[in-house]
């Protein structure tokens, strides 16, 4: 067991973890943060994407011990985040999910695309979503919802 300390969704956590435990399993099984989903467990499906120090990261490809002193945000930790709240509204309005398995990571990935200004066209959004697989929607409504969010955010903050 290895002692680790980190912030998860703004809360300081100290725990002892086995070195082989992935961040995804730690979040789901030790912290009950089950909004982080596991699909392929080798970095292809994107369902386990969380933020580590503000950067989107595959939680299945990161060991919990490697997160010592880092800042982790899961889908449960975005209350009050304007981009995520606008994304949620638009995912609802445009029917951008069916089973919902990919949705938490879709939201986190879409937020990153919008913040890095990589959501300016359908092409760009589809490129940016290549690492997040959805087996229900055919992506069309997800792309529409992200494009609508990018427009909403740009309208609210014209000079940002």
């Amino acid at each position, binding site marked *: 067991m290895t002692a680790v300390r980190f912030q998860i969704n703004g809360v300081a956590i100290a725990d002892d973890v086995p070195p082989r435990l992935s961040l995804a399993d730690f979040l789901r099984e030790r912290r009950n943060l089950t909004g982080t989903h596991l699909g392929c*467990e080798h970095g292809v499906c994107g369902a386990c994407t969380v933020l*580590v120090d503000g950067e989107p990261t595959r939680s299945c*490809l*990161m*060991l919990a011990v*490697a997160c010592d002193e880092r800042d982790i945000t899961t889908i449960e930790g975005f209350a009050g985040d304007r981009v995520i709240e606008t994304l949620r509204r638009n995912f609802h309005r445009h029917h951008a999910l069916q089973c919902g398995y990919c949705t938490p990571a879709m939201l986190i990935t879409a937020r990153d695309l919008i913040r890095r200004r990589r959501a300016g066209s359908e092409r760009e959004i589809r490129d940016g979503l290549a690492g997040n697989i959805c087996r229900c929607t055919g992506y069309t409504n997800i792309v529409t919802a992200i494009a609508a969010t990018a427009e909403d955010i740009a309208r609210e903050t014209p000079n940002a």
Partner: protein
Amino acid sequence: MIAGGQSLVAMMNLRVASPGLLVDISRLPELSSISENSDAVSIGACVTHAAVEDGQIVDPSRGLMRRVAATLAYRAIRTRGTIGGSLALSDPAAEWPAVLTALDAEIVARGPVGRRSIKCAEFTTGVYETNLVADEIIESIRVPKLPAGARWGYLKLSRKSGEFANALAVVVADHARDHSRVVLGVANGAPLVLEDTSRLVAGRGRDVRLAVAADLDRAAGRHFDEFQRNLHVVAAMRAVQQVLQ
């Protein structure tokens, strides 16, 4: 050794790799540092693809490395995966071994007896095989600066954005010095330097298809089926076209 872990942890999850001990080197500041002199930039082994993509490092390649990084896997992989890790694993479909061979980069390896430099063209020796010995790690990669006026071409063929390449061609050409190097990835082994094609491009020759075909015929010990061969030819021709335009 584990740096970004974006291949290693995937291999562990698939039970392809089961190391008894892992040492995390990703937070050693020396391995993420960048230094520059008049003719080269040294990039620490643990610099991430995302850092290259975002222009956080001095780019010796006049945009080639940024372009490569931006289309390498997915953003959530690029934020963790490192340039040194990509070289150390030397997946035949990976971008950096081929691209850094085209740029004539040198790998600086560090072990208990000190440092040594290995030309990138000699570093990868086969599929997942390198010249690194068991007690060495990659410390940095020294990339010569492309002179003003030098041009590059890069073409990655894959069915989906961010996937591993089905074919990969990199061309660097400095016509002021009659120099060019054309390199293929996904070449059933180490990155394949196309000698005939390189000479042809240096001399601004046009019959690229023939030269690539001759180079592929001559590549010892490499077997390409007709489909793969065609992909290589198309990738090389399109990459060369970017340079000659």
